[in-house]
């Protein structure tokens, strides 16, 4: 069936050494629980969940400990049973080493589950299903950790043409998806079938790179043996050529369907949606088994004695895993993710999170320090390999020159930071660093600009208000002095007579007249003053006067409803 399918090709891409064999030799192992689990509350794109446990609480495995903060957020759970020993700030698995709120649990070793109940999505409304998935903490496990419940939505078309399941796994060293497909094919297929129903998709295409023959065979075998024939007829395993970054969501969608989803647009508007295989399996576990996302498969590779894949409880310190795999001397860094897009970790105590698909123990021999950066010679190698069809060297020149407007004109934000350009650059320029720099500068400037706009608006409004208050005060003062005498002179009878007038009370009438009089006086005064020294003015002064006049006109316009008609 695959032979008949027409595949498309994305532009560019590279073929680095894959180094996948080492970690793909042994089955997925379950490491023993560590003595402490540190579970960061913020593990997905979006809002940070609120802690709903406190120190001393006993928690069960699967118990929610962090409640989603709004719609764009995802809950977090206790990965095993035990006691909460701390709710405090701890360093995050991020190069910045920033700290986030974490719940630290001392496992009791009994691994006691909550009462896990399957979720009957067929009886639930789409909204209920999405809320359930949010509370089950299901997020994209390909590394982006976007809350999945937001994507389990066919969009405005109401149905999907193609649901793409991403088993390409194009990053070197990483084999967690490969092993998942080999060992958990049945559950994965069930997950895909559930998602197909939820998304109302015509067909499901599971894309796997052709360097994973075992996974392809296992998935095909599992499909033919699947009990739910009707659902599985719509699922197809598609072998795609191995070329980094074929596992990029947009690249895989392009390869499988020919559709290019532009930056910043919803893929559902184009009739497609893409999920990682790990996410599909997590959805199966959440819906059919009632189990929230508590663990994930992590590849440990690089400078370790026993590289392999582990089903790791979220919150496990990375050191625990590295020691389990036999740490070798000489490791100078830990990388989370692959060598093309991974991030260097601040230390080995940071916990495994939902985004941790791989931990790489790096050595100078494995990842040598880059040779000195040379000037760009505009050879165009980077443009040849860019999967987003960008001109990376132009972005580099503009970023370097801090011409950020130009970088945006040249589609900086379409860059997926896959690293292909830097990988091939003969001048060894860390191109992606330049794009990260430009992007963060642009974000910072946008924030600054927003803040400045807000401040300016506040300032202008204050000026306006002060000027208005000044005028009102002047008018009031004038009214007071005049009205004092008038009031004294007015007899009760007159007042009674006036009171019979249906529209205006005497006080109001007098006040209005007085305000008008005061304003008239002010205007006359202004007119008298104005012609004085307007002959020899500089342009700036003229502009200033014009601006002041404009502001006055504005104030007059504002005051108008409260005044009697002028003419």
């Amino acid at each position: 069936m695959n032979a008949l399918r027409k595949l498309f090709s994305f532009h560019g891409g590279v073929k680095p050494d894959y180094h996948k064999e080492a970690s793909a030799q042994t089955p997925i192992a379950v490491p023993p629980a560590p003595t402490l689990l540190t579970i960061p509350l913020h593990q997905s794109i979006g809002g940070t969940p609120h802690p709903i446990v406190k120190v001393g609480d006993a928690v069960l495995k699967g118990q929610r400990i962090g409640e989603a903060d709004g719609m764009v957020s995802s809950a977090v759970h206790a990965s095993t049973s035990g006691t909460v020993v701390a709710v405090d700030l701890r360093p995050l698995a991020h190069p910045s080493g920033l700290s986030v709120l974490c719940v630290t649990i001392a496992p009791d070793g009994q691994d006691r589950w909550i009462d896990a109940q399957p979720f009957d999505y067929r009886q639930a409304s789409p909204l209920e299903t999405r809320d359930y998935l949010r509370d089950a903490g299901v997020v994209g496990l390909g590394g982006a950790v976007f809350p999945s419940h937001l994507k389990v939505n066919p969009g405005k078309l109401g149905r999907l043409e193609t649901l793409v399941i991403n088993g390409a796994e194009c990053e070197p060293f990483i084999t967690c998806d490969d092993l998942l497909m080999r060992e958990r094919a049945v559950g994965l297929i069930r997950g895909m079938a559930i998602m197909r129903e939820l998304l109302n998709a015509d067909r499901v295409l599971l894309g796997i790179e052709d360097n994973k023959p075992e996974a392809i065979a296992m998935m095909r075998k599992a499909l033919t043996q699947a009990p739910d024939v009707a659902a599985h007829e719509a699922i197809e395993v598609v072998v795609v050529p191995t070329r980094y970054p074929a596992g990029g969501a947009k690249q895989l969608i392009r390869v499988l369907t020919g559709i290019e989803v532009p930056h910043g647009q919803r893929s559902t508007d184009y009739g497609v949606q893409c999920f990682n295989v790990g996410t599909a399996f997590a959805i199966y576990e959440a819906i059919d088994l009632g189990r929230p996302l508590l663990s994930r498969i992590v590849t440990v590779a690089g400078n370790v004695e026993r590289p392999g894949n582990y089903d790791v409880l979220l919150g496990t310190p990375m050191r625990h895993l590295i020691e389990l795999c036999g740490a070798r001397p000489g490791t100078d860094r830990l990388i989370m993710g692959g060598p093309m897009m991974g991030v260097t970790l601040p230390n080995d105590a940071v916990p495994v999170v939902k985004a941790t698909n791989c931990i790489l123990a790096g050595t100078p021999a494995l990842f040598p320090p880059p040779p000195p950066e040379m000037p760009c010679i505009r050879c165009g190698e980077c443009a040849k390999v860019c999967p987003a069809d960008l001109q990376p060297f132009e972005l580099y020149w503009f970023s370097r020159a801090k011409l950020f407007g130009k970088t945006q004109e040249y589609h900086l934000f379409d860059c997926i930071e896959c690293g292909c350009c830097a990988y091939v650059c003969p001048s060894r320029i860390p191109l992606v660093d330049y794009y990260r720099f430009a992007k963060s500068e642009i974000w910072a400037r946008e924030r600054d600009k927003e803040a400045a706009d807000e401040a300016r608006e506040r300032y202008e409004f204050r000026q306006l208000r002060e000027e208005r208050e000044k005028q009102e005060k002047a008018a009031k003062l004038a009214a007071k002095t005049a009205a004092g005498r008038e009031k004294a002179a007015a007899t009760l009878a007159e007042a009674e007579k006036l009171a019979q007038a249906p529209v205006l009370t005497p006080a109001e009438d007098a006040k209005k007249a007085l305000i008008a009089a005061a304003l008239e006086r002010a205007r006359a005064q202004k007119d008298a003053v104005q012609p004085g020294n307007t002959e020899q003015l500089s342009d700036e002064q003229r502009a200033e006067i014009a601006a002041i006049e404009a502001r006055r006109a504005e104030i007059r316009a504002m005051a108008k409803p409260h005044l009697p008609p002028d003419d």
Partner: protein
Amino acid sequence: MNNSPYFLKPASVQAVMLRVLLALVPGIAAYVWFFGAAILLQIVLASVTALAVEAAMLAIRGKPLGLFLADGSALVTAWLIALTFPSIAPWWLTVLGVVIAIAIAKQLYGGLGQNPFNPAMVAFALMIVAYPQLMSQWPAPGAADFAVQWQAIFSTRQLDAITMATPLDALRTALHTAQAQASVAGVLGHNAAIGAVGGKGWEWVAAGYLLGGIYLLQQRIITWHMPIAFLAALAACAGFFNVYDGGQFAPPMFHLFTGGAMLAAFFIVTDPVSGATTPKGKLIFAAGIGVLTWIIRTFGAYPDGIAFAVLLMNIAAPLIDMSTQPPVFGHKKR
């Protein structure tokens, strides 16, 4: 500690430049075979000068010497100057050309990657304007006595025995001076410097450059766009006017295999630093050079127009790039 990607493809500017030099070897071999070893002398002279000038300029600019001397870019410029200047030119002409190319056209603009003009072509253009006579004395095929060539380069110049007008020169002189009597066929048919398709001997040198160019294409150091667009535009202009009036306009093959056309197609037009970079831009850029070359060759005052054509298009390269940006992912019209 660096950020991702953590490992890189083994590639370097040096590797690129060395392969360009390697690709020049077949053409140089043919050059030596037909015109003697003087060219080797010029290459050595130009290379030594280039490295010395580059080192001096880098030192003045406070740049790391080892890193930039080893990148090989100065050597490529030096070899191109040696190959585009007459091989029996006096030594100081080559040295002066290299100094201009490296010191002014390259380093004063900021060194590697920063030069808006092709350094070798800047040197050629300046020298042919300043010393038109010396820049037009090319060796005659077969007159390859090294002693005489050595003498021509380093001491007294008794050139009558060893020089000959190049085919382009002969053709232009005849057509421009003899007026109505001369025809292309007449000139080309009765000239000892004319070979099967281009200049005698020169056509083989051009074939050598073609071979080297194919190697560069195979190595993916250059793309097909520029050589094909340049040669096609040159051939198209020549072909059109040759059909229109075969007596006044030389045939396409003559244009392709004389002068510096083949060298330019694969080694000069393709300079990435000073040229256009987008696929469409490369086509426009190189085709522009082809058309300008034909115009200058046919109507201009200089024997070959490639240097001027390249410099003129260098000026246009940024504009060409700006207006030919390819659509990015997701924004293509279909």
